[in-house]
């Protein structure tokens, strides 16, 4: 078995930056754009970590966390990175089941360390 990470982002450039910063962690990194893509990817494979690069997905009516996580489990872990600083947004995301919220601009080494720790914790 090997570790898998899914990156969800609408913007290709940011997605590539995060994907390339995670190279060498011994995990398979897949990318998709949008909520639909995330759902489809999660149906096809099991991920250890999902990194979403936009907060908007969690601020509308749906509950993407519940859709990708089997009931009662805290797996896969979900990290969100976005430009939003507002306290209400952060609380909304945490309430929706997001495990980590980070704001842009992001320190790539720090992100990489966090992801590595997360994967180690789960394996």
């Amino acid at each position, binding site marked *: 078995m090997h570790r898998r990470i899914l990156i969800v982002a609408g913007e290709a*450039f*940011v997605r*590539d930056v995060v994907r*390339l910063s995670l*190279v060498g962690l011994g995990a398979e990194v897949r990318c998709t754009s949008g909520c639909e893509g995330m759902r489809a990817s999660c149906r096809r494979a099991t991920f250890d970590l999902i990194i979403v690069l936009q907060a908007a997905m969690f601020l509308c009516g749906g509950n993407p966390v519940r859709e990708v996580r089997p009931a009662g489990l805290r797996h896969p872990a979900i990290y969100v990175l976005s430009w939003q600083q507002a306290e209400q947004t952060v609380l909304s995301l945490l309430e929706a089941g997001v495990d980590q919220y980070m704001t842009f*601009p992001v*320190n790539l080494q720090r992100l990489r360390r966090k992801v590595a720790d997360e994967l180690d914790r789960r394996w």
Partner: protein
Amino acid sequence: MVNPMIDTLYKIYAVLALATACALSAGALFAALRERRRRGHDAMLRAKYLHALMLALSGGERRMPYFPLFGHPGTRLLLCETIAGLVSITYGLDTALLRHAIDRYGLDRWMLRHVRRCRGYRRARALALLACLPSDETMAAAVAPYLRSRNRYVRFYALTVQLAADPAHALRYIESYDGPLSVSEVAELMALLRRGILPLAYGPLLEARSLKLRRVGLAIVRQFGIEEAEGRLLQFVADTSEPELGREALYALCSLRCSLLRREVAVFIAGMDLRERRALLRCMALEGYALNTMRRLFEDEERPYYETLVQSYKRSLA
């Protein structure tokens, strides 16, 4: 006598209009081809440049990354956009390596020439890209002429280039900036601050004599929720010489959810017109201030307005 002249004018008009129409059609065709290239070739090349940069950055090597097709038309701008894009969404990158790449390929000098060639918002965008390229103090002097531009975006992004190139003198640059800073511009300065470029502390900014610096300080207080600045905010509210700064300070107090039951606040609110008072009441309702606070700050006639607003956040038990 008139007719031959009119006929000549018609001829001139027809020729000029035809030439303009040809130019516009060629422009449309060129724009279509450029858009196609942007989506295909440029996107692919940008991904390759980013890959090369990220590999070099993660490897910690000082070896210059290889950028395929570099030197071909448009590739310099593409590499500048890639580096600027990477720098703008991250902090703590190895700027020495980026600086090395920029020096090696002469990107900053090329970008300065590009800035000179562009006009209007394209020049502002070129300056915004330049502000993200790691550079030294000489760049601050090189963009100084653009601080006098008629386009406020050009002026502002020239300032950001100066701030990024020579952060040690950030206060001086902001203070000498021509004209007031708009809300959008202060927000952009906050983005620079979060990237760790500006060595600004809120204390000296709030104490500064310059209104621009005070506004930046106020934005920092609001952005990072610095409750320790409450006393200084109250002083701004009490200072009648700068009513706009007082208004901003009052909203900052609101967003920090500080107690508004202060004499300074009451005096300031009494001087506001009905429109501003209602806007403040709506803001207070959103921030969750109690009816009791409102009663002591506003007059009795305004109570029903605020009560309706507050009630609309309460569950109906009927």
